[in-house]
């Protein structure tokens, strides 16, 4: 039992070190933003896919925003992908198509497999541009964002692009404020550090882009995947395409305002990530592919992120077991140290990362909410563990996954 505990402690220490490395890199390292200065170019034709499933509350906002972006009008086509909506989404989209002839082409999907990847896959029949951008319907792109997301595609090694997500409904309640902090840490530090260090920035499936030829080369959208973004990141990586992160390409999104919605969201992410870990983990780390050594190591660690929650719970149980068993070396002191070390160090590393992100963002007072993140972490650790256990159970019983759309909170126009 003690050796299993040692292994878990070691793995958690690796993740802790990784958090510190990323944070220190963001604070003191060379920052890579190679494509953000491309402001003049022969801008290529681009298709913007807006994934929408029952989005009557938000779809008009994003379509309005996309109609005012600074991109040559004759080179941008917006395709709202209306995936089996039963509310007013279709009606709102059709009104925009009428008001902006030639600039928006509706794709109404009434039957077919559920999930964003399946909807995007079907919508590809309308796409014939080399650059594709993807937004979820609750996002509000700024005027300069399209050019910023297109610019990296001048680099022929780039298959995917990811921008930064910034919560819009930050001040609603404790949950939205905690998610604001988590997003800061995740993007401002984690993603940018991976970009700086030549590791594996993750495609987020929204505020993002993909190269059509790369997508075709890797076999298109995988509609069996629960998180098409993670799946895309790894298939691109295995086939020699880079995903780049643009920290200054910021876009507002709406974050969940109630805990049940947040829990559902994080459980879906966990399941999708774990699915990708099983599918691509071995192939990435040891298989023959185009990834560099550091991409292999970081990519594998990134795949294991959501497996850490059940592992941590298991570690706690083992540590307690070892302690009460009384057979541990040094009368259980090692076990006790292990328990506190990985719990405290691991969490502190993440706290350090978020605190650094808040500082880099130039905000001041919101950092005082940091202690409340323990609450967010506690909810995450149990939700993610629950997702992992139910995933194993579903595997054994053959149950099918039900795709849950994240509920919106904005008032409809």
């Amino acid at each position, binding site marked *: 039992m003690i050796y299993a505990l040692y292994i878990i402690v070691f793995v958690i220490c690796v993740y802790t070190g990784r958090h510190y490395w990323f944070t220190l890199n963001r604070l003191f390292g060379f920052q890579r933003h190679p494509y953000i*200065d491309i402001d003049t*170019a022969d801008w290529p034709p681009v298709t913007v896919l807006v994934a929408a499933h029952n989005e009557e509350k938000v779809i008009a906002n994003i379509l309005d925003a996309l109609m005012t972006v600074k991109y040559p009008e004759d080179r941008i086509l917006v395709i709202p992908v209306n995936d089996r909506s039963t509310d007013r989404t279709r009606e709102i989209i059709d009104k925009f198509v009428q008001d902006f002839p030639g600039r928006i082409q509706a794709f109404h999907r009434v039957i077919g497999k559920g999930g964003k990847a399946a909807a995007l896959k079907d919508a590809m029949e309308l796409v014939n541009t080399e650059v594709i951008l993807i937004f979820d319907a609750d996002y509000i792109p700024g005027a300069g964002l399209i050019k910023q997301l297109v610019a990296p595609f001048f680099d*022929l090694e780039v298959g995917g692009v990811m921008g930064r997500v910034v919560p819009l409904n930050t001040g609603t309640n404790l949950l939205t404020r905690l998610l604001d902090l988590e997003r800061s840490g995740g993007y401002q530090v984690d993603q940018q550090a991976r970009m700086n260090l030549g590791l594996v920035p993750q495609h987020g499936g929204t505020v993002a882009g993909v190269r059509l*030829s790369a997508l075709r080369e890797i076999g298109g959208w995988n509609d069996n995947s629960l998180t098409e973004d993670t799946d895309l990141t790894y298939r691109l990586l295995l086939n020699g395409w880079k995903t780049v992160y643009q920290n200054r390409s910021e876009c507002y999104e709406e974050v969940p305002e109630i805990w049940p919605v947040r829990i559902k969201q994080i459980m879906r992410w966990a399941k999708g990530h774990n699915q990708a870990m099983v599918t691509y983990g071995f192939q990435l780390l040891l298989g023959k592919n185009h990834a560099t050594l550091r991409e292999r190591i970081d990519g594998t660690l990134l795949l294991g992120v959501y497996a850490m929650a059940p592992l941590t719970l298991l570690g706690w149980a083992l540590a307690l077991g070892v302690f009460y068993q009384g057979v541990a070396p040094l009368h259980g002191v090692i076990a006790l140290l292990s328990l506190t070390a990985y719990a405290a160090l691991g969490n502190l590393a993440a706290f350090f990362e978020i605190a650094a992100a808040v500082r880099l963002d130039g905000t001041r*007072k919101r950092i005082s909410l940091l202690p409340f993140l323990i609450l967010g972490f506690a909810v995450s650790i149990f939700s993610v563990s629950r997702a992992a256990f139910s995933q194993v159970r579903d595997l054994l019983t053959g149950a099918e996954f039900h795709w849950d759309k994240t509920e919106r909170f904005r008032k409809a126009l």
Partner: protein
Amino acid sequence: MNPYVAVAALFLMVGVMLLLPLIPSLVELRGKSDALPLSVVQQNAGEIRHFANSFRDYIKGIEPTLQRCVADGTTGTGTLANGEEYVALGRADEALLRALEQRDALHPVVITAGVDLAVPGESTLSKEIYAGCLFTGGSKNKYRAILGENSVHLGASSHVTRWVHALGEFTAERECQLYGRISSDSLIRLGADCVFLRLNAPRIEIGDATVNQDTTSSPVPASVNSAHAQRFFHEGDFEVQAGETIRGNLVVRGNLHIRSGARICGSVKSTKDLVLGDEVCVEGSLISAQEMLIGANCAIHGPVVAERELAIAAGSRVGSLQHPTTVSAPWIKAEEGSLVFGTLWAREHGEVVANQ
């Protein structure tokens, strides 16, 4: 002590100690003093003319005063919307400008001129200048910002701290230090040893770039959309032989050397250093994750991005009048005689290298 009181005291103390670090959190949660969404630049993301356009709007109110001063050949003064003082020049003789320059040390004012403006040398003007006609600056002058409705010419060793925008040509004599944003709707021409950060104009001449006008063939543009073309992927260092033509896109995970006279009918990416010999033609983009050296008389359609240092030799040109593009790197050394159409952006430091 009563054991019940002791236990209660213990619980109370533990409770207080737990709550103590949460007090700032609770105050912030309740007070929401920093609860607004992060400020994301939504409308003017990176627009080089943003400051110039804002300044034009800012001084719009004094247009009638300026016109009156020009008609009367007089000088007017007043206060702008935010309380800042201005001077409207309907005439601009040297004595007047000397007086303004001397006043600047104690009490700087925004200068607007409806006539040709010739600022004498060794002047410091620490507020914005609006030049309705030609602007000519003497040598060793220091400016904050200039908006010129016509051409703007800076004398040798001048210094700009924030921005310049000229609707006509912008020219800077040798050894000028141009920080911030410099833009023109027509042409930018920089003398030898000038330092720059961000330049944008339909045509940017480094030194006397007219010499290279007809020496290189114009690259046929290869856009991102033509990336359906074959992608040659090579692990390790690679060389394109002199005079060789490659039809397709080239991605090299290593150093790449394209020897003289080669032609790439597509885009090029190198994950390490990228060296172009003389008279190389690239029809697409040119990207290096490390240093890049562009030899003499090369023609590149663009964009050109180097993640470390970029050196451009004389006679080379990037982009064209019909297809302006971007040249970007943290450190750029552009030799006199090179030409860029569009944007030339040195994030940390750019300099014009004099011809040997």
